[in-house]
């Protein structure tokens, strides 16, 4: 059997450990992400999402539990830890604030350079990542500080993609973008996944964004895994989600309300377009009878 891309076993992380303010930011979380899968991690602000993902490449060391990447415990020794940085590409929230090089090209090349790859390979990776992230060719020789907000975001994401990680972890990749920008970005990530076949973990509090991309969803609440399952399974429990301060997408809520009224439309609808066709199907179905 193929080893899962990423396995988290009973991970616990405390803040202010050993003081009277000790608090668990992540408590006994277990998680398995298969190769090629897209996992969405959802949670309210302060539910421990960002702390959890900082363990995936060993930036944080768990107080209890294990992080296993590609069958190996990443904290085994220095080398496995270093390799985990490249195997799990972590892209934090507002990644554009990490740009620093003179040109966009050099910035995207920062990761591969740290991997000590030969220069032709670095060049190939930079070009490829720029293409995947939707960074236009003519921007590569510009200063990253001259780019627009959306372009900066893409350049920064390309800087992580260029390491060609087996698992790409994105923390709120669409934060602060307008609705059209959000949609474009999600499409870009979906395209990246389809082309490369990589495992993708996407962290968000936007149920819409997660629904557009994830196969499976993991809901974090109060530092623990509260729900875990396919998008359909999780999103059908609207009441439970609401009690955790989360909301199913508005359009899904309307569908659920219609179902309560006895109108037999599917519940797994997450975009207005799908809703329109579902309702149309329903009406046509009734006419047909």
């Amino acid at each position: 059997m193929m080893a899962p891309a990423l396995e988290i076993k009973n991970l616990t992380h405390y803040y202010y450990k050993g003081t009277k303010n000790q608090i668990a930011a992540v408590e006994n979380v277990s998680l398995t992400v298969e190769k090629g899968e897209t996992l969405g991690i959802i949670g309210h602000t302060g539910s421990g999402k960002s702390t959890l993902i900082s363990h995936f490449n060993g930036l944080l060391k768990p107080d209890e539990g294990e992080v296993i990447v590609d069958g190996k415990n990443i904290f085994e020794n220095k080398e496995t830890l270093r390799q985990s940085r490249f195997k799990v590409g972590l892209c934090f929230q507002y990644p554009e604030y990490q740009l620093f090089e003179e040109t966009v090209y050099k910035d995207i090349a920062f990761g591969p350079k740290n991997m000590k790859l030969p220069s032709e390979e670095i060049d190939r990776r930079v070009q490829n990542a720029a293409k995947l992230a939707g960074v236009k060719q003519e921007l590569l020789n510009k200063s990253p500080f001259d780019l627009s907000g959306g372009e900066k975001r893409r350049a920064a994401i390309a800087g992580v993609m260029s390491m060609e990680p087996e698992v790409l972890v994105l923390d709120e990749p669409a934060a602060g973008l307008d609705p059209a920008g959000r949609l474009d970005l999600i499409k870009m990530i979906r395209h990246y996944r389809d082309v490369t076949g990589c495992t993708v973990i996407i962290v968000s509090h936007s149920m819409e964004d997660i629904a557009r991309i994830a196969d499976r969803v993991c809901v974090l609440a109060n530092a623990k895994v509260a729900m875990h399952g396919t998008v359909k399974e999780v999103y059908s429990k609207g009441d439970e989600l609401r009690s955790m301060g989360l909301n199913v997408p508005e359009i899904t809520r309307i569908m659920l309300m219609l179902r309560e009224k006895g109108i037999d439309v599917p519940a797994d609808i997450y975009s207005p377009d799908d809703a329109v066709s579902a309702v149309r199907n329903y009406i046509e179905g009734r006419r047909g009878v």
Partner: protein
Amino acid sequence: MISEITIGQYYTGDSLLHRMDPRMKFDLTFLLVVFVFACKSFFSLALVAMFTLVAILFSSVPLKMILRSIKPIVIIILFTAVLNIIYTTGGETYFKWRSIEITEKGINTAIFMAVRIILLVVISSLLTYTTTPTSLTDAIERLLSPLSVFHIKVHTLAMMMTLALRFIPTLIEEIDRIMNAQKARGAELETGGLIARSKALVPVFIPLMVSSFRRAYELAFAMTCRCYTGGEGRTRMKQMKLRARDFLALFTVIAVIAGIFVLNHFFEAVI
């Protein structure tokens, strides 16, 4: 973790010293520091030491914290003590080896100097332990306000200092975030020699600079939007008011200073 660094050394509390007017605290600290130098005999120095001890008890700052403030200057104290023992001569000679002579006067002077340095540090750290950096700058602003006669913009300086203090924790958080982001791209910040390490800081400092400037612009804009025009005609949310306890402290300190001179007069001078 880097974010656990504390700024200044304020010790949260609600003691008599904490509640005193920061201006009075500042003035009294200044007076005491000046008059520690007026002490000539062990007895006047002991008086100041006693007073300091009482003040520490009133401040609710644990003795451990006070000792911690002395730690960084232990070397300086030892260094001056050794120099004093060697270079001050007089009185009975205890030990002689070539040109090095250890005498009664030398040892007395060394002890006297050491106690004096410790007192200076403890007294001034008591001020910072019991006063938040912001109220300290407030106090400095008020105390320096006579300088505006010379067209020195005291308010602006104080505001700059307050803002700088305010942004230290924010910037520490920012450094933490940027460091993590670059580490995630394989940057090695904690290994290698001096040159490799300073080179590795470039990817951290450039984004930090950029975001500091961004924050500065945003803050200036926000302040302008709220009609900030500088110090003129500006009232304060926290009015500083001298109360009975402040005058009580003032009289105690004056009494201590008078005591210093009386004791100087009656007892033999060490230096």
